């Protein structure tokens, strides 16, 4: 169904990365020279995880006449913001530089990307907000970048790939979490792999569809890592947003963690309460792609399995193709739940988003 009101916060949209030539002005002379000497500015940097040719990565009516999906800001404004009546949309620009092994080069490109976002893209529409892209090749560089960008209130979270080089909960990465928590920024683990290793524990599948389906198992891996390594305990004010993760796998995951914790909690004494409570308080998931059958009765049961209406955050995943028309909300979601995921939960998750003074329901609700 469509959103029954205006004023939603869209927690995951994807402007296309700009051409490298647009980022050169935001780099030091050394890196600008390097990228030009190496011809990196002349070729693409296309993420295997985000291949724009694939049907799923560009809804047919959301593909601009020229360029890749999400590359035309005017089209994006009309389709992603106006058509859904969004109050805000969080821009997760997925850039190939995140996969670079050369940490300094990755930091130079991603730093330029953050500057381009802050100075070129976000000012184009007051509803757009950004995510800070960082490389984890050297966590110190990520910390420095978070600190450099944090004062700009248009950045609302830190963006990391869900399938990285090491499980994300490892202590090696804790300085990054420390910096994000200090700045009041959630960490967004977004779908996509660096492909440092196969996207699943069984080895390398042949097809992207397999990568995309089994990605949910890697999200489980990331989440169990955060839990087991004690990240939630160590960083009590840090929220983790799982973006484009799919959502229906979470209840069974929680059940398994709860049960296993009872059996093996002496291995992990720092997990001091049942995992379901931790996850309910600290983990959020974006709505699309919503991976359930279209039967409203099934969907209502799934919602109940979550045992919480705090977890989901509204998203279109624009310009990705997970639904047609404005049929963005699964049938079976109650209007209360829709209000929670589209308004209350996003504002609670992203403290930097200025919530309208009057409750949205009294101002902007449209009659059905």
């Amino acid at each position: 169904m469509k959103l029954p009101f205006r004023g939603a916060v869209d927690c995951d949209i994807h402007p296309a990365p700009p051409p490298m030539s647009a980022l050169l002005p935001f780099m030091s002379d050394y890196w600008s020279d390097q990228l030009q000497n190496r011809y990196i500015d002349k070729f693409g940097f296309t993420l295997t995880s985000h291949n724009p040719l694939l049907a799923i990565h560009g809804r047919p009516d959301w593909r601009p006449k020229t360029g890749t999906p999400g590359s035309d800001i005017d089209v994006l404004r009309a389709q992603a913001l106006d058509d859904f009546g969004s109050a805000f949309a969080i821009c997760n620009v997925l850039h190939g530089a995140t996969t670079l092994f050369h940490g300094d080069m990755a930091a130079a490109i991603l730093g330029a990307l953050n500057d381009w976002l802050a100075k070129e893209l976000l000012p184009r529409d007051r509803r757009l907000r950004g995510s800070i892209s960082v490389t984890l090749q050297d966590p110190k560089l990520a910390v420095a970048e978070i600190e450099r960008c944090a004062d700009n209130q248009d950045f609302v979270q830190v963006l990391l790939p869900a399938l990285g080089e090491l499980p994300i909960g490892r202590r090696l990465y804790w300085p990054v979490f420390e910096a994000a928590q200090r700045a009041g920024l959630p960490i967004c683990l977004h779908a996509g792999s660096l492909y440092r290793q196969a996207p699943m524990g069984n080895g390398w599948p042949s097809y992207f569809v397999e990568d995309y389906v089994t990605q949910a198992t890697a999200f489980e891996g990331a989440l169990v890592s955060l839990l087991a390594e004690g990240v939630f305990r160590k960083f009590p004010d840090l929220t983790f947003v799982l973006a484009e993760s799919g959502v229906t796998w979470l209840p069974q995951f929680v059940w398994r963690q709860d049960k296993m914790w009872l059996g093996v909690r002496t291995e992990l004494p720092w997990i001091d309460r049942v995992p379901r409570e931790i996850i309910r308080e600290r983990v959020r998931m974006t709505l699309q792609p919503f991976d359930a059958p279209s039967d409203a009765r099934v969907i209502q049961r799934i919602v109940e399995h979550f045992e919480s209406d705090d977890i989901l955050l509204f998203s279109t995943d624009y310009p990705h193709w997970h639904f047609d028309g404005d049929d963005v909300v699964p049938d079976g979601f109650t209007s209360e739940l829709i209000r929670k995921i589209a308004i209350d939960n996003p504002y609670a998750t992203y403290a930097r988003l200025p919530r309208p003074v009057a409750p949205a329901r009294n101002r902007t609700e449209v009659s059905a």
Partner: protein
Amino acid sequence: MSHAVLERPPVGSARTRTRIVDCDLHITARSAADLYPWLPQQWRTHVETVGPHIRAGVYNQEPHPRMMARGMRADAYPEEGGPPGCSLELMRKQHLDPNGIEFGMLIALGRGIFEERNQHFAAALSHAINAWQLERWVDEDERLVAAIIVPQEDAEFAAQEIERRASDRRFRQILLSPKAQEPLGRKRYWPIYTAAERAGLPVAFHPAATGGGHPSSGAGWPTYYLEEHNTFGTIMQGVLTSLIFEGVFERFPKLKVVAVEGGFTWAPTLGWRMDKHWNRLRGEVPHVPRPPSEYLREHVWFTTQPMEEARNQDHLRDIIDWLGWDRLMFSSDYPHWDFDDPRYAFKIVLSEEERAKIFHDNAKALYGLK
């Protein structure tokens, strides 16, 4: 180094000038559309609506970006557009003609069939590239010969493709990437060696930028291109170790292997190390009855570029003595950035006989070039 030293005449003498065999010449299609005449409609659609799906985080860029011009000679980009290695005319002008190349072995690495995860697509692409090589290159210049490229992960298809091409003398070897999903001596790859031995064609291994989906070094993923480049040598040692200890050369006694662009000065130490430990551990590998260095010496050829350069030229000479002067073959790696000009490739002084072996005789004998 003085100007006088650098300005050398063409290799050898006028007599030998037109007799160079270059064992590593890179060609690539200007774009995927170049291959369309040989690609069924299903796969032309696939190129445009799905594209590559490889074991790496990015495509159309190397995971370890090269230092200059995307790893190419900057002057090798054709004026009319397209990547280096897509223009026969430019290759003739820059390399084949001025450097007196009598035969050139095409190494068509482009378009990623070795790292493509969709095996149906990889098969269609390799079939098309093999046909394209003949029509657009070998048939256009009599100096050129080709390597049959096959996707190693689909050994059944690879063997069929080799069998289809085996009697066509425009092909003189089979090309594989040493960075497979598993070490290439494993049995799942044996159909390729069965077909190669039956066809009487050597199997060449040439490093590819992306690989089998695991770190390119046993020490983990490198950070810099300098480190990644070192793996070209270590990966080659790994593939030879695997072939030998899996018993491939026992099972395929006529199989010949060429290590292209992997360096060669590590080969003697590899042989010594294998022999030393085989001697103690041979009970584990009863299917390898002879000292491993013997397989290395009998079955493996090496190309020169990029050549390690010892400060003392006697040291490099020692290495070639141990390796065998009949096992080393000149390669230029045109049009890559570290191209070896045949006039300057060797810093050591070679006798006429040694020069003849390295610059033409060894390759002519191995590939049956006349």
